[in-house]
Structure formats: C-alpha cells, structure tokens
C-alpha cells in the first residue's frame, strides 16, 4: 500500500503542477504585461572580464593558492549572477518573439523567429553554463568555458535589434539596448 500512497502523491503533485501551468498560461495570455520592462540590463564588458581566462591566469600567478580560490569563488558567484540574468532576459525575449511571430508581415515574423531561436539557444547555454559554474565553485582550480553564453548574448542582441527595427521602423531598434 506504501507504493500506492507514493503514486497517489506523485499524481496529485502532477495535477497541481499542470493546473498551475494552465492557470499561468491563461493569465499570461490575458495580461498584456510590459515585457521590455522585465529585461534587466547586463554589463557585458564586466561579464567578459569575469570569464577572461587571462584574468584568471594573472590572479593565479599573483595570489597565494588559498587566496586565489577565495577570489575565484567570488568571481564565479558574480558570473553565475550574470548568467542567471542573461537566461532570464532570454526567457523574456522568447515571449516577445513569440508574440511578434503572430505579426502579419513576413520580415517581422522572420526576425521574430530568429530572435526566438537565439533566445532559446542562450537560455539553453545559460543553463549549461550555470551547471558548470556551480561545479567550478566546488573545484575553483578547474577551467571554465562560459564564452558560449557571451557569444549567444551578443547574437541575441543583434536579433532583438532587427526585430525592433522591423516592428517600429520610425525609431531605431531599442530592445537590444536593454539587454
């Protein structure tokens, strides 16, 4: 009977989850939230500096091992915060892109498609990068490749800019500025 109880609890949790998903979907569709306002700006230069292997090498040479590990962990936590924000921004851009996909004109829909693809790629890379960062937090001396996230972010910026231009040709593209 223990097995039955476990399965009943699992099924009940599944039911709650699916009802929450359905509810949030209907709320999301009915509420015209300002998506651009949800995008948090990211200092790409600071992020680039954080993931620069040369910086790590420099610190490794200049600092005692224990101090280097402490500094490295602080840098990794900062990196995680950046990647987390980049992933969240990508999620917002997926929603913006999906909304724009319904646009009647082909160029806008095409740009929206590209934006969604790039945003999905970035969100995927952000998840992988976060995983690697957390692993690196346990072993601060290990190497870390977060460049794909940065490259993805830059690519995303271009896609968002193109979509903004197509949606509002009068004004220069501005979505990417928030990224």
């Amino acid at each position: 009977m223990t097995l039955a109880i476990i399965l009943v609890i699992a099924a009940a949790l599944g039911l709650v989850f699916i009802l929450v998903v359905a509810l949030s979907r209907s709320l999301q569709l009915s509420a015209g939230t300002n998506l651009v306002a949800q995008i948090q700006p990211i200092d790409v230069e600071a992020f680039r500096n954080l993931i620069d292997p040369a910086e790590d090498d420099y610190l490794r040479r200049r600092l005692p091992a224990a101090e280097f590990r402490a500094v490295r962990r602080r840098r990794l936590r900062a990196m995680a915060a950046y990647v987390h924000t980049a992933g969240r921004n990508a999620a917002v851009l997926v929603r913006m892109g999906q909304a724009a996909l319904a646009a009647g004109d082909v160029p806008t829909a095409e740009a929206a498609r590209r934006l969604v693809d790039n945003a999905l790629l970035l969100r995927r890379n952000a998840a992988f990068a976060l995983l690697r960062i957390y692993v690196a937090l346990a072993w601060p001396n290990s190497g870390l490749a977060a460049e794909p996230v940065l490259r993805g972010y830059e690519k995303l910026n271009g896609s968002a800019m193109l979509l903004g231009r197509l949606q509002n040709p009068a004004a220069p593209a501005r979505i990417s500025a928030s990224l």
Partner: protein
Amino acid sequence: MLQAHTLLWYYLWVGPNLLLLILAVFLWKRRIHRVYPFFWAFAVVSALDQLALFVADISPSVTPQTWWRIFWAGLVAEGLLKIGLIGEIFAHVFDTYPAVAKLGKFMIRGVGVVLVLAAALAAAYTPQDSRFGIVSGAHLLEQTTYLIELGLLLFIFSFSAYFRLNAAPRTFGIALGLTISACVHLATWAVMANGGLKGKRELLDFLNMSIFHICVLIWFYYLLIPQKATPHPAVPLPENNLDVWNRELERLVQP
C-alpha cells in the same frame, strides 16, 4: 447514488465516449485529423473500445473472461497510440525550434528510459493476485502505462515552461486533457492494483469516468471552439543609449 449499474454510471461510461466519437467526426470534417493524426486515432479507438466494453458488460452472453480480454486488447492498443500521441505533442511544441528540439529529444528519451525502469520497479513491488491474474494484470498494466504517460507529459510541460514556449492552443488542450486524465487514472489504478478501497471500487470507477468526461469537454473546447486571437501590440520600446551599447558590443566582438 454512486453505485455501479445506475443511470449515472451508464451515462458516465457511454456519454463521454459518444462525445469523443462526435469530436472525432468534427475533427475529420474540419480536416484537423491531418494535423493531429494520433489524437484522432486515439479518440476513435478509445471511444470504440469503451463502447465495446459497455456492450459486453450489459450483454449476458459475454463471460467475465471475454470481457477482460476485450479490456486487455483495448489497453494495449490505447497504450501504443498514447506513445504516438505524446510524440505528436512533443513535435508540435518543439520541432519548430531547432535550438531546443534536439536537446528535448535527447532528454525525453532519457526520461522515457528512467520512467520505464521506475514503472517496472513499481510493478515488481505491486502485489499479484494469482486467482484473478487477468484482472490484477490489467490493473498493473494500467498503473504502468499511466506512470510512463504522466512522466513523459510532465516532462514536456516542464521543458516548455523552462523555455517559456507556449504551445498552440489545440496542442495545449490535447496535452492538458491527457495529463489531467493520466494524473487521476494513475492514482486510481495504483490504489486498485495495490488492493486499496476493497468493496468501494465503484467510487474509483466513478472518479475515473467523471474525470475522463471533463477531459473530453476540455478537448472539445480547445479543438473546436475558435480561440480568441490574443492582441499582440507592438512592443513598447524604451528610450535608451543603443548607439553606445552597439559601439561597445562591436568593440567587444572585434577587439
């Protein structure tokens, strides 16, 4: 009132399945069956199977053993169709997005393997009744298929929620109905397979049939009623220092 072979019992057994057949006819007429062939096949097979079981149940010439054989045949057919249907839902949600489709396929295969192992483990720990092997075996098979089905559907919902991908209303409706049905059926079949609520099994049957009725209505709503077109206003783009940003980005990309 909640007794077997009452008017409510017969309605809940026959009504939703007739509705499902009517839905299948509408889907055929509107050519939606071409877009969702597995769902259409599932609707037809599932409804016909339940109606055949109903006729067999009220027909005095059909022995209990024959009834359970029909039940088994329907169970296997439905199980196979549901695997195809889950693949169809997955394809509708993710195949248009190559950035995540490949990862999704890889992950759903992994999740599928884990679920099959978990279902096999659950089956191994479920008590078997050797006197009525055909009955307890059917309960066990129901528990196993619903466990795998629910796991796969929840994975699809979680994966799309993580990437904030909204499925088309029809796909969402099919998946929603199927998942609600799988949740409740898994719970009830798990209780039955493990020998719970003996003497009050009708209550579980009523619950299963009522939930299935609700799911059929969900499918009607999402598949036949035209969904409101959500207005997509042009994104209000804020004032910013885009030029500075782009210059800086170019400098970063090409130092």
